[in-house]
């Protein structure tokens, strides 16, 4: 037997093991790129973090910042600024809090009131998803509407004041704000890429390490969790969805969703089941998703243009309508 062949036969088992190990690693490595994932709970929903280039330390810093935000804005936390303002009509707040309220008031104004953080009393009346959900009497709704309107919030040098009966509620913007807080926490760290999801709001940070852009799935309104109606291929940015298919109740055959129209006091009905908005900040994406759901497709277009935002509208008939800027980024699922 030539020497080379003898050597080959001696080498064969090692070569076989090497090749098989390489195959297994090849199969696993692309799926498990260096990333750190964890889940926490904040803003009344799951907070999912996927970090590329970072780890537990950065994740904990993000979670702490989002929880600090929640402690400031949640009306359900007694010590929060929001709870204090709601209870006492006014409270001294941090400068950050005043900026958040200013931003919310600005979005409210630019959406013609379709997004509004002063719906706390009205939301409590309906309590959709709560233990006391019901269809309030028209007089009750009319009375609750007397205590709404962002323009009545007084933002002073050190404090914020609201009229008697008004209740602040950040529910339609809070998860987007959580994404903004995550963005701020990530900036300047070693984390180069990340996906942070606070409920239905998502921060896409940096470039996807696989180099192909981020893929964001849009939940199918009529199907089980994880069944997608479409996907978006996006660069870094913020994405939020508002829909009527998760939180609702049915009375006398009629469906009442949790997104209330500030103009009528009743759940919004514009032939839509969901709106997904891509915007420059998390707060804008979240608030605009609600505003567009309230406004309907036609009236939303000028608002989206004002914010340089894009959207995908899903109608009750199952039609999927993207705005111009998302047309070539949208893939409809079969």
């Amino acid at each position, binding site marked *: 037997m030539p020497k080379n062949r003898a050597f*080959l036969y001696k080498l064969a088992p090692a070569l076989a093991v090497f090749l098989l190990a390489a195959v297994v690693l090849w199969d696993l490595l692309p799926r498990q790129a260096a990333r750190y994932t964890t889940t926490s709970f904040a803003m009344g929903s799951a907070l999912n973090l996927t970090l590329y280039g970072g780890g537990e330390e950065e994740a904990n810093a993000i979670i702490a910042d989002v929880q600090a935000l929640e402690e400031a804005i949640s009306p359900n936390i007694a010590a929060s600024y929001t709870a204090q303002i709601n209870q006492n009509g006014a409270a001294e707040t941090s400068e950050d809090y005043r900026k958040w309220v200013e931003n919310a008031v600005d979005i409210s104004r630019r959406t013609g009131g379709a997004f509004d953080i002063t719906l706390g009393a009205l939301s409590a009346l309906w309590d959709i998803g709560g233990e006391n959900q019901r269809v309030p009497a028209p007089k009750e709704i009319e009375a609750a509407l007397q205590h709404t309107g962002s323009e009545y919030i007084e933002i002073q040098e050190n404090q914020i004041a609201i009229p008697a009966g008004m209740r602040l509620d950040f529910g339609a913007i809070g998860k987007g704000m959580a994404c903004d807080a995550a963005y701020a926490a990530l900036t300047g760290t070693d984390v180069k890429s990340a996906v942070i999801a606070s409920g239905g709001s998502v921060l896409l940070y940096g470039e996807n390490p696989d180099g192909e852009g981020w893929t964001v799935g849009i939940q199918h309104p009529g199907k089980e969790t994880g069944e997608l109606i479409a996907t978006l291929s996006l660069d870094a940015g913020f994405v939020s969805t508002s829909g009527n298919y998760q939180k609702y109740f049915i009375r006398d055959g009629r469906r009442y969703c949790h997104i209330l129209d500030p103009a009528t006091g009743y759940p919004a009905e514009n032939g839509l089941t969901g709106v997904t908005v891509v915007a420059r900040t998390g707060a804008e994406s979240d608030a605009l998703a609600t505003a567009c759901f309230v406004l309907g497709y036609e009236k939303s277009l000028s608002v989206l243009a004002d914010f340089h935002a894009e959207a995908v509208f899903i109608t009750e008939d199952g039609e999927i309508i993207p705005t111009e800027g998302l047309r070539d980024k949208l893939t409809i699922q079969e």
Partner: protein
Amino acid sequence: MNRTCFQKRDWLLLGGILLTALLLTAALRLFGGDGRVVEIYADGQLAEQIDCRSLTDSRQIEVNGVQVEVSPAGARVLSSVCPDQVCVAAGLLQHSGDMAVCAPQRVVVKLTGTAEDAPDAVVY
């Protein structure tokens, strides 16, 4: 002097090794699944972590008043003491990234995995 180091049976040996490697790759892709692991979080802390592939039958777990069924097919919230029942309506979680959130009970049931075609995030 024989200039050809490798003869027919040597090539057969090498070919056999390569073929085995290719078959193993195909088997991993076809039958390896997406490595589904069910994670159950309570108050933001990981309470349970179960590899679906390790199960031969379904298993029920209760966390914060939320009854979760984990099976080789995935996981679902069977019942919850919460008023809105959004978590129950989420149905069977069977794809990587699928999630059922019980906000009132502060419970998150999440399917993690390694599926390459899973989106980076889902908005709902």
